[in-house]
């Protein structure tokens, strides 16, 4: 497939052009968050810039439609971090049992995980809401974290990865008197860094951008995640597109930085998952 030098240059040009098209929406978002308010959504590339959108956002907006944007950002951080951490711990634990332990009922649990993974989750939405409400958890962080404290996809990914780890490592540690928790924490997890990065990034990103669930279990202003708050402001802030773009930057930039920070391990991990 790799042709002449000329052909290669041509492919680089095409690849670069495609990339510009694909990241254009992000560039558009960033430019408009800094654009003078008379130019927001009016020009492809704004010519005059201001910090007004960010100042407006961080001061909460105008009286009457003031909202706790910074609090929402911290809510997102708390909820996403707690939820992702739990999903990873539970995912690795269950996967370790499924991949490396011999016990009665293991095959049953394995099949149950696979069945549930491919089961359309929409059927569970209303009763899950009712469980949270009846448990008195409506409008709390727990309501957003607990139903998302476990990811079957994480279990699935870790199980596949752990199965590829030779049993000799585990047997050797057992002879040294290590407990199962110690083996998982000190031997298996350090060997699974690349897959852990992939699982972490996908889970965190998914949790960070969740809308439907966070929207129905939380009501009060101080509890909303940034994604939900931004969603709610589509109408009321319709006349203030600049601050909306600034809020979008606030929502998007952390996840991109996180991703770029781990991009090397992410590439390594993806190689395994795509085999």
């Amino acid at each position, binding site marked *: 497939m790799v042709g002449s030098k000329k052909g290669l240059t041509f492919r680089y040009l095409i*690849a670069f052009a495609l990339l510009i098209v*694909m990241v254009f*929406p992000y560039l558009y*978002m960033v430019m408009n968050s800094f654009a003078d308010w008379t130019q927001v959504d009016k020009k492809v590339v704004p010519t005059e810039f201001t910090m007004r959108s960010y100042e407006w956002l961080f001061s909460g907006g105008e009286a009457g439609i003031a909202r706790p944007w910074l609090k929402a950002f911290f809510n997102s951080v708390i909820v996403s971090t707690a939820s992702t951490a739990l999903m990873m711990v539970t995912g690795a634990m269950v996967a370790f049992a499924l991949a490396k332990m011999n016990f009665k009922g293991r095959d049953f*649990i394995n099949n149950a995980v696979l069945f549930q993974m491919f089961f359309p989750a929409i059927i569970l939405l209303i009763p*899950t809401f009712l*469980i949270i409400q009846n448990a008195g958890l409506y409008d709390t962080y727990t309501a957003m974290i607990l139903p998302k404290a476990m990811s079957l996809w994480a279990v699935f990914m870790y199980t596949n990865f752990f199965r590829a780890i030779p049993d000799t490592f585990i047997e050797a540690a057992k002879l040294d008197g290590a407990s199962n928790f110690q083996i998982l924490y000190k031997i298996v997890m350090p060997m699974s860094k690349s897959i852990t990065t992939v699982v972490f990034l996908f889970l965190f990103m998914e949790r960070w951008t969740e809308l439907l669930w966070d929207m129905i279990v939380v009501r009060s202003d101080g509890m909303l995640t940034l994604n939900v708050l931004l969603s709610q402001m589509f109408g009321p802030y319709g006349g203030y597109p600049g601050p909306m773009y600034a809020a979008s930057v606030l929502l998007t930039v952390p996840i991109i930085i996180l991703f770029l920070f781990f991009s090397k391990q992410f590439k390594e991990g993806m190689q395994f998952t795509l085999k």
Partner: protein
Amino acid sequence: MMKRNGTGWLFASPYLLYAVIFFAIPLIWSMYLSFTDWNLISPVYYFKGFDNFIEAVKHPGVQAAFFVTFKFMAAFVPVVIVSSLAVALVIHGLPKFKGLFLIGFFLPYLASGVVSSLIVKGLLSHNSAFNVFLRKFGIEVDWLSTPLSALLVVAAIIAWKFTGYYALILTAGFEGINKDVYEAAAIDGVTPSQRFWKITLPLLYPALFTVLILSIGVSFGIFTEVYQLTGGGPNYATNTWQMEIFKQAFTNLSAGYASAVAIIASVVTFASILVIRKLLEMWGKRNGWV
């Protein structure tokens, strides 16, 4: 042995708890609710037998959800396959910066649906550069208030999001193909189009199959973009299952009825994916790709 059984169950216990509280109980509860007229608030409710299901099947919102999903699939799946294939074709085997490109193309996957909806809303607003440009040629489209374009806009946003992710899968597929096959074909004087259709595509089929199944799955779970941009409209043209269930359960508070809709949605989703999967497998087998 007893002890080992015990630790196995101990490690698996988070799943067991989760499966009972957030799967088994909601599943049964959902079925129970679907036979009632409960409105999410009132302490009193009555059993209606299969009335909710009959009512749902007759309801335009539910009928729309059924067809919109397939219309959406017809727009989204070909677009995302072609765009991710194009990206993969261009970047696979590049001697330098390949990783950098893959990461760059993956970035849209990180976007929140709320943010991409906001950007698209801005790009398509009445006085946006794009619409002003079109008006110079006398073209005036209200993109989100026209049924067909509204559906296509949502499909385009989702295709944008997933292109880089699927290109990653396809690139890995391309790179799994043995280069010797191409050399042998070159000696036999195979034309580029023959090479693509007779060699690349069959060898790429496993990766392509994965992408097809993933993208079809995505088609059944659209919510955020529709909720932000159209609310399911105009006239149900973008009314997805999630949108219909959300409206019925949390806007109209018809919890019983919405549960029935959710059950219908789950059955339709499960059955459709199963059938499409089987058809794809048969198609691959008939062409000798599997």
